[in-house]
């Protein structure tokens, strides 16, 4: 048994130093605040700055996609600290193109994603197909060398700024998984309308996307006709594991800092036994999330992945994240009620935003209720839910 995460050798110090200097000299000044979660800017000028930022990182050899794993680790560590996005939109399509795409698709799209030239959005969910994705109604009909696609998509992160969409649509008149097919959609195509959605956070990170007889070249299909479910499962599994972000988040450390900065009954909250118990609980679950990651990585290396691993980690992370944000607000006392823009707010309302946004993690990527069905049915082989529509 071994879990060895090697120290970064000292010969990489120069790389880190160079990146730090690069960040100090080039980090864009943005109008929008980087809050918790996958957030979108509100100003198109910010988007242009971010594209230039990702491009400059890539050109200077500091991008998060470095082949050298130590360089990649250093880049992620240093870039995370800036709280400025360096992966734009939702590039989950990378996994789909790598595993199911054609040579032409790989060459045309993968480098442009890495360099920030192309921003992607995901076009999966629909108003009547959220957690039950197999109910999707968007149709694709072959007409010459194009598919003509009509339907409505929702919850598409960054769609208002995206160049391409990773789309699921149905070919033929089947139901369930039948006919679901993955496409690459050029968002500038005629018939694509994007309408931003304002969420409970007050910000606009997601969109509705309307597709009205949009023509998609047939060679923009990813995989085979009807193989979209398989293609999507691969990237969704990836999403469920990686949603929290690559870096480890020390949630217990967050609570320690809040508890030191605030008082209860005239004493620092950190001296309150009940608070200490909660910090201990959060620390334990946070460490266990890391240990679970080691287990999943080990099983994956041996080809022993199981269907419940990704949903399990997503539930674990998202529910802990919600619990911590909720508890942090309580620790703040009355100050917990103050938000961004209010001068008395703690850390400019970051935790209040995290509290609201936490509900995104428990719902997105398959709501935790659906994921519990997945664990029960695919993992434990319990009887499936009856359907009301067949």
């Amino acid at each position, binding site marked *: 048994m071994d879990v060895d995460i090697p120290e970064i050798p000292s010969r990489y110090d120069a790389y880190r130093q160079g990146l730090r200097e690069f960040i100090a000299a080039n980090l864009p000044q943005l109008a929008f605040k980087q809050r918790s979660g996958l957030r979108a800017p509100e100003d198109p000028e910010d988007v242009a700055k971010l594209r230039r930022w990702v491009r400059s990182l890539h050109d200077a050899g500091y991008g998060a996609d470095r082949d050298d794993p130590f360089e990649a680790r250093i880049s992620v560590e240093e870039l995370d600290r800036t709280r400025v996005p360096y992966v734009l939109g939702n590039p989950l399509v990378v996994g789909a193109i790598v595993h199911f795409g054609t040579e032409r698709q790989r060459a045309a799209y993968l480098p442009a994603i890495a360099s920030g030239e192309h921003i992607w959005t995901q076009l999966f969910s629909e108003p009547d197909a959220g957690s039950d994705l197999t109910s999707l109604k968007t149709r694709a009909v072959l007409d010459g060398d194009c598919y003509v696609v009509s339907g409505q998509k929702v919850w598409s992160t960054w769609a208002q700024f995206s160049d391409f969409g990773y789309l699921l649509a149905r070919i033929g008149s089947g139901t369930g998984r039948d006919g679901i097919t993955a496409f690459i959609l050029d968002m500038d195509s005629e018939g694509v309308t994007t309408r931003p959605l304002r969420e409970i956070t007050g910000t606009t990170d997601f969109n509705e996307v309307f597709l009205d007889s949009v023509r998609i070249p047939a060679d923009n299909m990813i995989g085979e006709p009807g193989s979209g479910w398989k293609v999507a499962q691969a990237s969704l599994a990836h999403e469920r594991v990686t949603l929290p972000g690559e870096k480890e988040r020390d949630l217990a450390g967050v609570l320690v800092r809040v508890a030191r900065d605030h008082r209860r009954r005239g004493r620092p909250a950190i001296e309150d036994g009940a608070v200490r118990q909660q910090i201990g*609980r959060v620390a334990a679950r946070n460490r266990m999330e890391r240990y679970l990651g080691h287990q999943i990585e080990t099983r994956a290396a041996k080809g022993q992945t199981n269907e419940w691993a990704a949903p399990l980690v997503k539930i674990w992370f998202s529910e802990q994240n919600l619990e911590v944000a909720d508890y942090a607000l309580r620790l703040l006392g009355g100050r917990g009620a103050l938000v961004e823009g209010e001068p008395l707010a703690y850390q400019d309302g970051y935790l209040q935003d995290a509290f609201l946004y936490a509900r995104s993690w428990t719902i997105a990527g398959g709501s935790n209720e659906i994921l519990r069905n997945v664990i029960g049915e695919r993992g434990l082989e319990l009887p499936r839910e009856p359907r009301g529509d067949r």
Partner: protein
Amino acid sequence: MFASSGKGAMDFAYNDDQGLLRQVTRRFLEERHPIASVRARLEAESTFDRGVWREGAQLGWVAPLVPERYGGGSVSDQPVVDLAAVAEELGRALYPGPFLTTNVVADAVAVFGDEQQRQEFLGAIARGDCVATWGAAVDGSADAAAIGVEASPAQSDLRLDGVARFAHDAHEADLLLVSCSAPSGPTLALVPLPATGVSIRVLGGLDLTRRFCEIRFEGVHVPSRQVLGAVGAAGRAIERACCLATVLQAAEAVGAAERVFEITVQYAKDRRQFGRAIGGFQAIKHRLADLLIELEGARAASWYAALAVADDRPDRDEAVAVAGSAVRDAFAFIAGESVQIHGGIGFTWEHDAHLFMRRAKVDQLLFGDPEWHREQLCCLVEAEASA
């Protein structure tokens, strides 16, 4: 290889030999000590079968922490991980014997004992001839502050007076390791049983599968050659014993939790109400998903704690505190919900569910309750946040 790949060895699993040790232990227990054998002794004075213990010792239950020159040996270079693998199987079978304490005593003697003590006890322990227990404190913890036995110097020897409680199978044991307080500090003494002035009473306990004892000491004479290490200097040895105990208890708990979970999932598939298997109802399906989530988290925590103690990793104390709090809570949650999901049949004496629930509750109370370990974790996190 590390330098070029940048990824270290990630092999967070039992190795093949440890897997084999588990398999052999599982088959042995299924044959020689199934839960039915445990049930047969639920109300007996003793739940311990010495014959089974000796055969278990042949399989390697108590050899890993005993150096080879004394007749022990490990199937890996991580004996604590070997023992965690065995402990999971013992937990699955609700094995009643003092596996944990015998290994804790073996480790204490191997690490802190002198040559004469090692010669005298280690070989016998590894062979299964010497069953050992630990009288750690009066309250189920292993805290030095809760030691209830006074050690008064009597020339170069010691005289013990007081009480230790929750010593596993002390009434069956051949050797007692006792934590005591000398004027110069905490001390560990080895007392072969029976001994003059030592009286042992089996405590009426919630866990019907195991027996815990109260040990009274009245003027017990302990010659200096039976003191482990120096008088007053056993703080580090006690801390080490407590870490090992927490790791082994966590591994037993994971095995037991896994077994009761399997039993419960099967019941949810078999039991039909309203014309359907009850596992098809989301109220049950989602509960079982939650139990699996907690079981897998507990398994990961138990494995990591075993690894951290085996390799003395820098985050050892943190890993032990995670296991000490979260694993026992997970077992208690899983076992309790198992009774609930079984419904009426789960409330009957004949069903095994309550045996797991009883053991899980008692596990929460020994070697530091979950609250104690969470406080430890909070201290560690605070120190980290200051660094």
